[in-house]
């Protein structure tokens, strides 16, 4: 359910009936009122879409059936649940209501707890339907991007292997192709692993193995792992690691966070610059920061930095690849530890990521 109060439109030609429903609902919901069918349609089409409509059937000029029919014909309003509230209690009337697309049928005189319960149920159903639709949309977008990002490396894998099989190539060319095939398949493996991580995170199956670990010790280990890559790009790594007390975190996952931040810093730095890693205790938290003197991230792209597949306009300096998923996974891991991540960046000066974990 959403945090915001839901809005219910009450449509009835009798003031007394309106007041009864309004008194009943005003505590938990925002209510709007219409005294006839025309007014109800006007209200619905004038901007504020109600989340649910309680609709009387017998009204002068335009009856409730006609109102319901018109609501269900419009794409804008067809998903608003309609509950008929009526004194007409025979089975045919009720069937007609349902056949026009109403979700429920309540007979007058009403029982207040029943009305409240049904309203609540139908609002919850509508909420979860909307959520499903939204998730489905995100999933489809995600699949589209993933397919695209796998097709590109497949082009070089398939193309190079095909040429090696079908064409006489000089030895040095063959070696070069094999190196590219190897590099590209590693990159694809990284993308696939990232996709699995995202999928695990999204479906809530992201188990942390929390144990007593030492962040400064972990940082040193992970720095050692990237030092070769850094040296190749002539980037100096400076570490200012405080002696920290052991604390509770998942060593592999936080290691993954550090790997990501360190490789990003190296990826987006020019040779001759330096990357600085600092750990310290601050305000009862343990903080680690990774700071580079790279290109910096434009201000308008910072907000999207942690979204899935949101690559920035900033390009790696040595032709390295990005999956566009690393930072979204980093953020999820940090949040799963109830920690925080923030970023400061200035174009032309560099970027610093700060991660705080509970001590």
């Amino acid at each position, binding site marked *: 359910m959403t945090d915001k109060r839901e809005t219910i439109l009450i449509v009835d030609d009798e003031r007394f009936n309106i007041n009864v429903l309004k008194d009943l609902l005003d505590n938990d919901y925002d209510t709007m009122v219409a005294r006839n069918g025309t007014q109800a349609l006007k209200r619905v089409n004038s901007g504020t879409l109600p989340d649910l409509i309680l609709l009387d059937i017998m009204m002068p000029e335009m009856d409730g059936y006609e109102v319901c029919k018109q609501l269900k014909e419009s794409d804008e309003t067809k998903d608003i649940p309609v509950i008929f509230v009526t004194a007409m209690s025979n089975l045919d009337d009720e069937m007609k209501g349902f056949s026009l697309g109403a979700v429920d049928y309540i007979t007058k005189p009403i029982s207040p707890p029943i009305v409240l319960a049904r309203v609540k149920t139908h609002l919850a159903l509508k909420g979860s339907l909307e959520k499903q639709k939204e998730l489905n949309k995100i999933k489809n977008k995600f699949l589209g991007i993933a397919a695209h*990002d796998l097709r590109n490396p497949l*082009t070089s894998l398939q*193309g190079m292997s095909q*040429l090696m099989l079908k064409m006489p190539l000089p030895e040095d060319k063959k070696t070069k192709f094999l190196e590219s095939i190897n590099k*590209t398949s590693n990159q694809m493996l990284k993308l696939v692993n990232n996709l699995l991580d995202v999928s695990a995170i999204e479906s809530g199956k992201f188990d942390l193995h929390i144990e007593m670990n030492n962040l400064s010790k972990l940082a040193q280990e992970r720095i050692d792992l990237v030092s070769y890559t850094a040296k190749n790009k002539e980037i100096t790594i400076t570490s200012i690691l405080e002696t920290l007390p052991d604390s509770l975190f998942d060593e592999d996952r936080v290691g993954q966070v550090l790997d990501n931040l360190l490789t990003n810093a190296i990826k987006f730095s020019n040779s001759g610059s330096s990357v600085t890693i600092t750990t310290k205790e601050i305000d009862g938290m343990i903080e680690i920061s990774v700071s580079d003197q790279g290109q910096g991230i434009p201000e308008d792209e910072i907000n999207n930095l942690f979204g899935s597949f949101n690559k920035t306009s900033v390009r790696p300096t040595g032709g390295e690849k990005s999956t566009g998923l690393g930072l979204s996974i980093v953020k999820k891991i940090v949040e799963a530890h109830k920690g925080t991540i923030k970023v400061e960046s200035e174009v032309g000066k560099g970027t610093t990521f700060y991660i705080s974990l509970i001590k």
Partner: protein
Amino acid sequence: MNKPLDRILYAEDEPDIQEVAVLALETVGGFNLKICNSGKEALDAAAEYQPDLLLFDVMMPEMDGPTALKEIRSLPGMENIPVIFMTAKVQPEEIAHYKDLGAIDVIPKPFDPMSLADAVRDCWNKI
């Protein structure tokens, strides 16, 4: 209609894919190729190279394929230069979009390097 296809202005930012396509088009296909690493490079080279055909990747840094196409078509004498997009974005609505932009065809990635030249020649002969 056509004279045989000879000069292709080819833009692709991915070095590995570029290498495969160059072998496919030059060595296998026998075309003359001007190779560019971005849409911007293709735009800068277009007037001097006077290509018969543009063969463009869609997503490239600096300037993407569709933008480069638009710019090149505003150059004198190039208003109707034919273009083929080569892209990994091959959902039906994406292909329709490239055709709307004036592409004579779209070659999906991955492509077969041994038959790429034939595919390009077939597109050319359809014009």
